[in-house]
């Protein structure tokens, strides 16, 4: 593990064309890292995320992505991801290939990836049209009962990027609260970059808690607020209001471009991004 700046870490670990998963299910979405990928101008990424959320709307709208593996692509509780829709419906700013799953299927694929099995098995994709549009959804027969089940190929991203609450100086990373498929995405990856709210001398004891041990972590980045406008349990809450405002910001191409220029492209880093939004501080 190396302690790096976000800029260094992403320059070192993410190349054009890589398969990249920025995971975090509502909670701990690595916004700062997503913005930095945009600033660095990454192209042709194969993005992986169960729930694309606003950060993938931004990456897609900025032309970083060529392909998307996902299972639910909306603005939670609000509606559409307009940039995702524009890419799928009109190919703007470029066409986006979809590799579409259900949550259960994608979770099974991440689990298989973490265990380095070539495929995951589930009772799923039953009598619906998903396997007609996704050739990666297969079937497998139980060698004992003959029963047919669904199979999905393992997901093993080149790089997984997470945001977490805490790392210690060795690089052990602790996550608590809603953990989604973060641990599986982390252990499935070729390289693992984690931004954290805090770096501490000693992690709080959490015998059966969720820890990514230091030798599975390639880079740790100290990046307070790195999940904003998503949230970090124990540090700050989700900015639901921002999620609502995004609907208007992202609805048309020009408004989106202006906003991204002002707040992401023309800010230096995440602190600059937060300052540009005048997020309130206690």
């Amino acid at each position, binding site marked *: 593990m190396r302690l790096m700046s976000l800029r260094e870490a992403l320059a070192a670990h993410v190349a054009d064309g890589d398969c990249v998963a920025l995971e975090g299910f509502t909670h701990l979405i690595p916004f700062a890292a997503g913005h930095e990928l945009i600033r660095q101008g990454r192209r042709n990424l194969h993005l992986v995320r169960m729930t694309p959320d606003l950060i993938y709307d931004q990456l897609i709208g900025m032309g970083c992505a060529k392909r998307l593996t996902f299972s639910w692509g909306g603005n939670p509780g609000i509606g559409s991801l307009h940039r995702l829709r524009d890419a799928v419906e009109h190919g703007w700013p470029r066409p986006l290939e979809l590799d579409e799953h259900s949550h259960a299927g994608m*979770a099974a694929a991440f689990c298989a990836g973490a265990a380095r099995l070539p495929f995951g098995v589930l009772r799923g994709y039953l009598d619906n049209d998903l396997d007609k549009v996704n050739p990666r959804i297969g079937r497998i027969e139980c060698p004992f009962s003959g029963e047919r089940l669904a199979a999905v190929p393992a997901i093993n991203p080149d790089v997984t990027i997470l945001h977490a609450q805490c790392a210690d100086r060795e690089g052990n990373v602790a996550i608590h609260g809603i953990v989604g*498929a973060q*641990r599986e995405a982390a252990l499935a990856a070729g390289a693992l970059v984690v931004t954290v709210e805090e770096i501490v001398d000693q992690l709080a004891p959490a015998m059966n808690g969720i820890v990514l041990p230091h030798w599975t972590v390639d880079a740790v980045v100290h990046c307070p607020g790195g999940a904003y406008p998503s949230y970090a349990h124990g540090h700050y*809450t989700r900015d639901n209001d921002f999620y609502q405002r995004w609907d208007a910001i992202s609805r048309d191409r020009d408004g989106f471009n202006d906003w991204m220029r002002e707040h992401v492209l023309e800010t230096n880093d995440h602190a600059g991004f937060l300052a540009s939004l005048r997020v309130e501080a206690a």
Partner: protein
Amino acid sequence: MSAATRDEWMTVAAARMLWNRCVCFVGIGLPSAACNLARFTHAPDIVLIYESGTIGTRPDVLPLSIGDGELAQTASFVVPLPEVFSHYLQAGRVDVGFLGAAQVDRYGNLNSTVIGPYESPTTRLPGGGGAPEIAAHARQTFVMLKASPRSLVEQLDFRTSAGYLDGHGARARTGATGDGPRAVITDFGILTPHPRSDELRLSALYAGATVEEARAAVAWPLLLAETVETIAAPSESELAILRALHARTREAHSQPVVLPKSLVGGA
């Protein structure tokens, strides 16, 4: 107290269908309001699971997202998301799953993926998320949606989640372990499947709603159940509790987010 809105009718009707100690897989929006209303009224020990991994959660206000901190904070415990789907849903440990959809057909099959062809949709919807397997494995599902001939359709553009397929017992011949959609709760009343054909029929109307209204909101020729029951209006107490819940929710979510000062030194 002012008359109930149609959203309130739907929420109350759904809440009444839940029982104490039932295990619900909850989605955001009306289902979340219905489940928590049930919890604050007749079903205090209802077990709520949100797909973010929060099990046995007891939020004081409604979450705006499926993974609000409030859900984790008030849960019995929080599991990684893959376990929600494998160890709880797939394992048959969920009594009731709530689903929404852009389109429902007469056999309770759902579309939440695309309007138009998949490869060149006129409207790209969010997609299946948890729904395909909730539809398969929850012991029963309740579908909640606002009715119109564009949502209650003759033919789905895409089948995201299987209901009764082509009806007439077709579902029983598949690998789905749950019983399928036992009710579609709309803004005029409730549709339930015919015991043999599985076709959704009008089985209950909100007091004040009419069969004509129902028929106008459904694209297929809507059949009536042997008896169409009348659903009593939300009681004073139901409405008061639901409105207080919404008021608490608005209040909680109107608090501006505050980041630790160190983060926004420049602002």
